[in-house]
């Protein structure tokens, strides 16, 4: 076998700044410049390699014979000194009976660079470590920018939702818009009637024919309300199958009775959905405000609600006007 000579130390220091030269007896004879920084103050040279490096994989190495059996294999190594930096490596014969172990930080490189204050010059020009560090920083900066954008967009979306005054399915106003309108009319002292309508048997339609049928019925109901009310009336869907109509200036009980009845009649007309006939009805509770008494908008809503439940209790499909006596009976 031809004897080879170890390349000059300068050559190896540049090509592999993290290599360790070990003689046949397992003693270190030279280490690359970057590795020297990794155990500051330690001699390296003259130390036993296996007392400095703990070779864990492919298997725990206890002596040089075992190391010679895994030449060329990928080694998982840990420095025995704190902070027990993890290393990857490969060992090959040096041609004179010893071995050269070339090392790299592998995935622990971020910590190692910080722990040992390494610079770009500590890595071989062919080593992609610095590019990897660049990429980590660049990507986390980009990620941070994206994250901030997402946060801002989410904030904007929430704000938009809070400001929304429309029920997305029916296009009617939502509860928020109704609350605002109520407050406004009470504040201005303008008389109005407040009609609270709850659909009867709607849950049965939903359960029997599905949500698509339910949505179809709701759209139809919205059309009925639009047709049966006047232009200035405010119609809101305030719950799954609950609606409130605010009718400014409409305080004549006989008119309201007729309007309520027309609404109930229209609601009771069956609607077809994909060949199925959907039947619902409606219960109504109505409160009239004269525009003078000192009143809280919430109380008016509650009054309408009490009247509505009176309709429900009396057998549904009817309209009840609020009367304080209703509260006594419940």
């Amino acid at each position, binding site marked *: 076998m031809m004897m080879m000579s170890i390349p000059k130390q300068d050559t190896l220091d540049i090509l592999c700044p993290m290599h360790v030269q070990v003689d046949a007896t397992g003693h270190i004879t030279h280490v690359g410049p970057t590795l020297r920084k990794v155990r500051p103050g330690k001699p390296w040279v003259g130390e036993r390699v296996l007392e400095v490096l703990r070779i864990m994989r492919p298997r725990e190495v206890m002596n040089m014979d075992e190391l010679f059996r895994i030449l060329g294999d990928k080694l998982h190594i840990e420095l025995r000194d704190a902070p027990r930096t993890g290393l990857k490596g490969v060992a090959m014969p040096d041609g004179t009976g010893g071995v050269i172990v070339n090392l790299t930080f592998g995935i622990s490189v971020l910590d190692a660079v910080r*722990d040992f204050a390494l610079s770009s010059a500590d890595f071989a020009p062919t080593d992609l470590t610095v590019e990897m*560090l660049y990429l980590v920083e660049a990507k986390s900066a980009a990620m941070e920018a994206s994250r901030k954008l997402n946060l*801002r967009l989410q904030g904007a979306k929430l704000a938009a939702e809070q400001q929304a005054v429309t029920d997305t399915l029916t296009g009617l106003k939502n509860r928020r818009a109704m609350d605002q309108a109520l407050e406004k009319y009470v504040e201005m002292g303008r008389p109005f009637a407040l009609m609270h309508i709850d659909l009867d048997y709607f849950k049965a339609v939903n359960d029997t024919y599905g949500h698509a049928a339910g949505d179809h019925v709701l759209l139809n109901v919205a059309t009925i309300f639009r047709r049966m009310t006047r232009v200035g009336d405010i119609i809101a869907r305030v719950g799954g199958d609950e609606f409130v109509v605010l009718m400014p200036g409409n305080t004549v009980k006989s008119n309201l009775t007729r309007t309520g009845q027309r609404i109930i009649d229209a609601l009771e007309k069956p609607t077809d959905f994909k060949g199925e006939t959907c039947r619902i009805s409606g219960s109504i509770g109505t409160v009239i405000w004269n525009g003078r008494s000192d009143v809280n908008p919430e109380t008016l809503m509650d009054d309408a609600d009490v009247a509505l439940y009176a309709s429900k209790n009396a057998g549904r499909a009817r309209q009840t006007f609020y009367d304080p006596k209703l509260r006594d009976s419940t």
Partner: protein
Amino acid sequence: MHGLALRAVQLFVNDCHGAAKWAKILNSAGFEFDEFEAMLDYEEEVAQKLLVAMTDVLERPASDILEDIGTYLVSHPNVEALRRLLRFGGVTFEEFLHSLDELPDRARLAVPDLVLPSIELREHSAVNFSIICQGNFEGFGHVLAGLLRTMADDYGALAFVEHGGGGQGAETLSVTLLEATFSEGRKFDLGAHVA
């Protein structure tokens, strides 16, 4: 134009000239928003409108403003990340100059849709270089000139950078490296990154 670039300009105005000027600039440009989003894309003309508004409000020629932006980008603590990313390009200023060719690729590695003007370094002698940049934003050469001057300081090198004008979409810079290690420069700690 990429929002990252426009947002950098926004940071520059706010940090160097104050929020009031920024508001004036947006107003003068006719934009109806308060800030640029780094991760969104904007029409090319937005950058031109912005620059015109900046010259009006800051009352300085565009080339001066663009150079200031270049300086700001690699010296202000609020954009330290960028200076760090550039320092990855090389251990010395000369090595950094040689890494400029790959700057657009490096940028794309970080943000795939970020398109920078192409940059070509020509070495005339050990100390004389010219840099040709080509892209669709006229004036980028001035940004690069400010950036290179500041990076030379950062590396502790003494360099003379001059914008040599341009034409047909290309701008030429000349760089004279007077002394590679003139001062200590600023420290670049490879592992200093804090996310």
